[in-house]
C-alpha cells in the first residue's frame, strides 16, 4: 500500500493529495450519490460571501475547444446558511472541508474569516483573490501584488486556520503575487483559477455569455496551469496546490511531479462525478506499479 498522506502545513494534513475545486463541487452533499466524499483529500466549497449572492443573469456557461467558459458570478448561499444547513451534514459524513471565501473588499474577507475562525469542522480557508466574474472584488486583488498582500494580511490577523491563497493566472509575473502573499502570511498557495476568455455568436452578433467574458477551465488550460505551478514552486518556500484541467490520475501526477503538494479537480467533476476517487485510486496504482512507498517521494521529483 502506497502512503498517500500529505502534510501541506503542520495544521493541514490530507489523507491523500486529491481535493475538489471550489465552484465545481457544490457544497459537497450533491456528490454523495456518487462517491464517499470522506475519502477525498478534502472538499473545497463553492466560494462563499458574507451575504447570499444571486450571480450573473443570462447564459452562464458555454463550451469551448477542450474547455468551458463560465460566468456564474459567484452565486452562493452565504456563509450563515452554509454553517447552519450544510456544514453539519458534511461533518457527519466525515468530509474534510476547506471553505473558499471571497468578498467585495478587504473588510468583507476579514469578516468571513473571523466568522469561521472558531467554527469546528473547517480545516482551512481558501481565499479567492482571482475570480474573473465579479466586478468588485476578485480579480483586481489577484493581479496587484500589494493589494493581494494587504488582503491576506487582513485575513491573517483574524484567523488561526491555515490560509490558502488562490492565485489568478491572468498576470505578467505570477511569482510577484505569490511572493507578496507568502510574505503577508499565507500558509499555502493554490493555482490556477480560470483564464479570462470570451465567446461570441456570429449569427446573433452577441457575446455567448450574459456577463460577456467568462472564466476558461478544463483540459485546454492544463499546459498553462502546469507552467505556472512549476514557476511558483521554484519561486516560493510555502507549499503549492495545483489546479487546472486535471481529468485523470496522470494529469494529477503531472502537477505533483512539478512540485504541487496536492491538486484540486474542477471541471472534470461535471463530466464524471466520481472522478475524484478514481484519481485517488489511479495515483495509488501508478505509484505502486512504479515502486514508490509514499506519494511525497514522487512530489517535486521533476528532473530538468
Amino acid at each position, binding site marked *: 500500500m502506497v502512503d498517500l498522506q500529505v502534510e501541506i502545513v503542520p495544521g493541514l494534513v490530507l489523507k491523500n493529495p486529491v481535493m475538489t475545486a471550489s465552484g465545481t463541487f*457544490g457544497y459537497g452533499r*450533491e456528490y454523495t450519490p456518487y462517491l464517499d466524499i470522506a475519502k477525498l483529500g478534502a472538499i473545497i466549497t463553492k466560494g462563499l460571501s458574507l451575504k447570499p449572492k444571486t*450571480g450573473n*443573469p443570462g447564459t*452562464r456557461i458555454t463550451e469551448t475547444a477542450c474547455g468551458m467558459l*463560465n460566468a456564474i458570478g459567484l452565486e452562493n448561499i452565504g456563509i450563515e446558511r452554509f454553517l447552519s444547513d450544510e456544514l453539519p451534514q458534511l461533518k457527519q459524513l466525515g468530509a474534510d472541508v476547506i471553505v473558499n471565501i471571497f468578498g467585495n473588499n478587504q473588510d468583507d474577507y476579514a469578516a468571513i474569516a473571523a466568522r469561521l475562525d472558531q467554527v469546528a469542522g473547517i480545516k482551512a480557508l481558501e481565499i479567492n483573490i482571482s475570480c474573473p466574474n465579479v466586478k468588485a472584488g476578485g480579480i483586481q486583488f489577484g493581479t496587484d501584488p500589494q493589494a493581494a498582500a494587504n488582503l491576506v494580511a487582513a485575513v491573517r490577523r483574524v484567523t488561526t486556520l491555515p490560509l490558502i491563497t488562490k492565485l489568478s493566472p491572468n498576470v505578467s509575473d505570477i511569482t510577484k503575487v505569490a511572493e507578496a502573499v507568502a510574505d503577508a502570511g499565507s500558509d499555502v498557495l493554490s493555482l490556477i483559477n480560470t483564464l479570462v476568455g470570451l465567446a461570441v455568436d456570429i449569427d446573433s452578433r452577441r457575446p455567448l455569455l450574459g456577463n460577456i467574458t467568462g472564466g476558461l477551465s*478544463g*483540459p485546454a488550460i492544463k499546459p498553462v496551469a502546469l507552467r505556472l505551478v512549476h514557476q511558483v514552486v521554484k519561486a516560493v518556500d510555502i507549499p503549492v496546490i495545483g489546479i487546472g484541467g486535471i481529468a485523470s490520475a496522470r494529469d494529477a501526477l503531472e502537477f505533483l511531479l512539478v512540485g504541487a503538494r496536492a491538486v484540486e479537480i474542477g471541471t472534470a467533476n*461535471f463530466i464524471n*462525478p466520481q472522478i475524484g476517487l478514481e484519481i485517488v485510486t489511479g495515483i495509488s496504482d501508478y505509484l505502486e506499479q512504479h515502486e514508490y512507498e509514499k506519494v511525497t517521494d514522487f512530489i517535486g521529483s521533476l528532473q530538468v
Partner: protein
Amino acid sequence: MYLFTGKIVSNRQLTRDIRYLRITAPAEFCRQAAPGRFVMLGCDDGLFDPLLKRPFGIMNRGDDWFEVLIKEVGRGTLQLGELAEGSCVSGHGPLGNGYPEVDSELRSKDSSPLILVAGGMGIASIASCLLFNNRRPLNPDCKTILLYGAARLDELLLLDEIEKNSADLRIETITDDGSSGRRGWVTELLENELRQHPASLTFACGPEPMLKNVQQVLCKFKTRGYLSLENRMACGFGVCLGCVQKMAATGDNGAGESAKVCTQGPVFPADKVVF
C-alpha cells in the same frame, strides 16, 4: 442516479438532422426513469472534444434500454447522432424531477383533459408521458390531448409510435409552413382547447419562445400547467449553477428567486417561471 456505459442498440435517422437512438442502460436506471426526466450523454472515447455531456429527455425505456431523440445542432449532438450501432456512450441519470403524477389533486375537475403541448424537439420530453404510459399509467380516467407543432410536416415525428401506444389519445398537429394542413403555432391549438376545457392540466415542452406563449395562454385562462425547460447545462446534477432560471419570488420551487433547472426542474409550474 447512475453513471453507466451504454451501447447503441439502434440508430434510426428520422430526418436530415434528427436521430432516434436506443441505448442500453442498467435496469435500475430504467426503473427510475420517469416521464420528463433526462439523461446526460457523451461519447465514450476518452477524448476531450466535446468536453461536457449533453442533456436529452428520456423519451421511452424498457427493462434495460432507453430511447432518445437527438437533433443535430452542434458538435455534441452531431457526434452522438453519428454513432454507429454497437458504439458506447457514457450516460448519467436519470436526472431532474419529471412531470408530476397526474392525480386528482392536480386536476381541478376529473373530466377535464390533460393537454400535452410539444413544439419541435419538445416532442421527446412530451412523448415520454405517452410512451411510458403502458408501464406507469397516468391517471386512467384522464383523457389526453396531444398538441404538436413543428416547422414542417416531415418534422412531425413519431406520430405512429405515439398513436400505437396511447389509446384514447387525440392528436392535433400544426406546422409553421402549413404543410401538415394547419398553419400556425401550437399555442393557437392550446387556446382552442382551453376555451372548451378551461380546467385542463397542461404540460408543455419546446423552444423558449413557445413556452413563453404557453405561459401567457395559461395565465389568460387562469389554468394550471407545467413547463419543461431546456437551459444549457454543464453538469446536470446541481453543482455548476450554469442552468439557473429566474423564478417568481414565492412558491414551492426553492425559496429564492432562481432555481436550478437540472435538479429543481426541468419541469416547473408555469406560473413560477420568469422568462
